[in-house]
């Protein structure tokens, strides 16, 4: 496979993942606004920060963290490289680039996803249309994922697609935790207040995990449980441990397939082992914030190393 093709697959799936993650953050934001009379600019600001586009937002809108401004920026703004519209456009451009590596089903699902979302997001979204548009985004990206799982060979093409997916997903979950880590700290004085419950629920909703958490923990929403769930639970498909394990697996398949190990393999295994070796208590003890920041840094460094080792760019 051409190095460029591997890079195109990696970025195509990072971008698809980002499309969904951004939509999920908007969904979480809208829910807080609906369920809480006091939802205000601070909540929207943390959504923008969690999406990793705080600087781009403030360059464009200053401190105007109003619901409609934020929603438009996250869904439609071409100046926001992570907006749903920009992300799906870049996913589709990469898909065109690597079309020879995709099954017809995956290409068509991606192309159709782009056509549908580009049309749905061509005009500002009215508040009452928002739920149906967020639903469309979820549905269209699910179709691409379904086509990937159902029709692609499990070879290096699939591995690069998966590595891109989980690097992006790990980064996204970690950024959400990084923005909200303080509400998960046990020392915060208003533990148990209703404000807290909303914050926790927002975190869980941002990763579509509020129901999963309830299945596992009943109604016992507590900060440590949530942190444990999102960082260490290997059943939870958006947890850091899950993402790190998947990346290490897929890189491992590549090493077997090619008969060649690279520095990225050691890095990925170190990350997986680090998450396996911790308990939530030891993380809290050493500092939750530092732990998450280290994860984000290592995850990014791993992405660059994969890019180098497999010659995406030269």
């Amino acid at each position, binding site marked *: 496979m051409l190095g*460029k093709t591997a890079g195109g697959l990696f970025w195509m799936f990072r971008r698809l993942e980002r499309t969904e993650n951004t939509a999920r953050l908007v969904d979480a934001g809208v829910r807080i606004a609906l369920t809480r009379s006091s939802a205000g600019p601070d909540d929207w600001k943390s959504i923008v920060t969690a999406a990793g586009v705080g600087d781009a937002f403030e360059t464009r809108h200053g401190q105007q963290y109003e619901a409609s401004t934020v929603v438009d920026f996250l869904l439609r703004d071409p100046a926001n490289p992570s907006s749903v519209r920009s992300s799906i456009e870049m996913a589709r451009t990469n898909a065109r680039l690597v079309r*020879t590596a995709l099954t017809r089903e995956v290409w*068509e699902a991606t192309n159709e996803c782009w056509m549908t979302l580009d049309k749905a997001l061509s005009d500002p979204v009215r508040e009452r249309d928002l739920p149906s548009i967020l639903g469309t985004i979820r549905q269209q990206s699910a179709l691409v994922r379904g086509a990937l799982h159902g029709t692609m060979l499990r070879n290096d093409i699939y591995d690069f697609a998966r590595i891109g997916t989980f690097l992006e997903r790990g980064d996204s979950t970690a950024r959400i935790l990084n923005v909200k880590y303080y509400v998960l700290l046990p020392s915060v004085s208003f533990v148990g207040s209703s404000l807290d419950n909303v914050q926790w629920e927002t975190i869980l909703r941002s990763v579509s995990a509020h129901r999963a958490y309830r299945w596992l923990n009943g109604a016992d929403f507590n900060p440590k449980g949530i942190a444990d769930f999102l960082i260490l639970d290997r059943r939870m498909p958006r947890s850091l441990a899950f993402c790190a394990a998947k990346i290490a697996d897929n890189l491992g398949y590549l090493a077997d397939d*090619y008969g060649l190990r690279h520095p990225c393999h050691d890095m990925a295994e170190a990350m997986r082992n680090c998450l396996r070796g911790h308990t939530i208590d030891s993380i809290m003890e050493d500092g939750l914030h530092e732990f998450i920041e280290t994860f984000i840094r290592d995850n990014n460094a791993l992405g660059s190393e994969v890019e180098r080792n497999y010659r995406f760019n030269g």
Partner: protein
Amino acid sequence: MQSDSNFFDEMYQDTDAPRAPYQRYHDWITAEDAAGLRRKSSEAETFFRRTGITFNVYGDDEAAERLIPFDMVPRIISPHEWTRLAKGIEQRVRAINAFLHDIYHRQEILRAGRIPVELVAQNEAFLPKMIGVSPPGGVYTHIVGVDLVRTGADEFFVLEDNARTPSGVSYMLENRETMLQMFPELFSLNKVVSVSNYPQDLRRSLAASAPSDCDGEPVVAVLTPGIHNSAYFEHSFLADQMGVELAEGHDLRIVDGRIAMRTTRGYTPIDVLYRRVDDDFLDPLNFNPESMLGVPGIMDVYRAGKITLANAPGTGICDDKAIYSYMPDIVEFYTGEKALLNNVPTWRCSEPESLAYVREHLSELVVKEVHGSGGYGMLVGPAASKKELAAFSAKLASNPSNYIAQPTLALSTVPILTRQGLAPRHVDLRPFVLVSPQGIRITPGGLTRVALKKGSLVVNSSQGGGTKDTWVLEA
């Protein structure tokens, strides 16, 4: 059907009396309900859009991807018509390769005075760097498109030769796929020769043209200028269908004297490169130094015989319309036979008497730039206003050798489906030819392009033309 008796209609002899090859199709479509057919037609558009069978139009907004309109009425060619055409095409393509070999070696045809020396020596498309180079297997044009038009029952003419980089074969294949999906019943009613082997034939043909010292299965790749190129869809389609890599210039470099592609496991040498990058952009060290699309030094590797380029550099000279005007002589010179396919009579404006004639009869003629393609920069006299004619006449006078002129041909028509039912529109035909040291292979049929506007003679997709599926019936 509406008809216009000035033109030869390929489907109908008279209103409602179909010609033999169209008989079954006529019976079928007469029995179909009109609304249902129109619905099918819009389904086809959705299908093309979803599949991403698009092209980019130069000069349009960037990234504007357009569909080439597809008309669902097939163009049908009888077996004996096709046999005749195929013979003529094969002869012409043989002559083209012999001509290319000659002008880059001994130049016998120039010494014999059959073609003016300056027409070759001073031709932009003549590549002095190819002098003395013998491509692997002696093949210059591995992929050729010969554009044909028809004016009567037995009157076919070659309109132009595409020996550089003929495009459109992906539309030929996708048009057939679309027809098979939409109207499977038509293919039980009619025995249509399949075209679906083209990608395998192309791959085999390219592999057979590999350098002679290549041992084992040759590594083939397609070189594309990238996703912004108007024919990118076709490049990726062909790479995909052949099961080979689709590379851009920056994926390739010279490793140990060979062209190699950067893969996830390191550099892999390539034996045959089907390149869809023009000569001028192929090698910034040997040609245009500004080019970002090519591979520095590839021409040196090529001259050393370490890679096959398909088509060979310097083949574009055969697309030149002044060279075209000599094609009957070229065929005769190299094959010793009369050309089986006719040329359209052509005035070379470089010749003073011809120029005078052309300027006097401008309103009856079609005038083309000798290096032009895609229907750009051409004048269709009968359709031009007085002002346009005057302006063009001035252009002609200032640079006569840049132009040739031809009579306005009464191009044949094939019906398309319109809101008012079937209506005749002008068509041409581009058959696709594969050449390898093992021989010449012509895909039955080719791409039919159709002018969708009533009365229009311009079929180019960049100028609002569409395409049709082209059937050659089994004998």
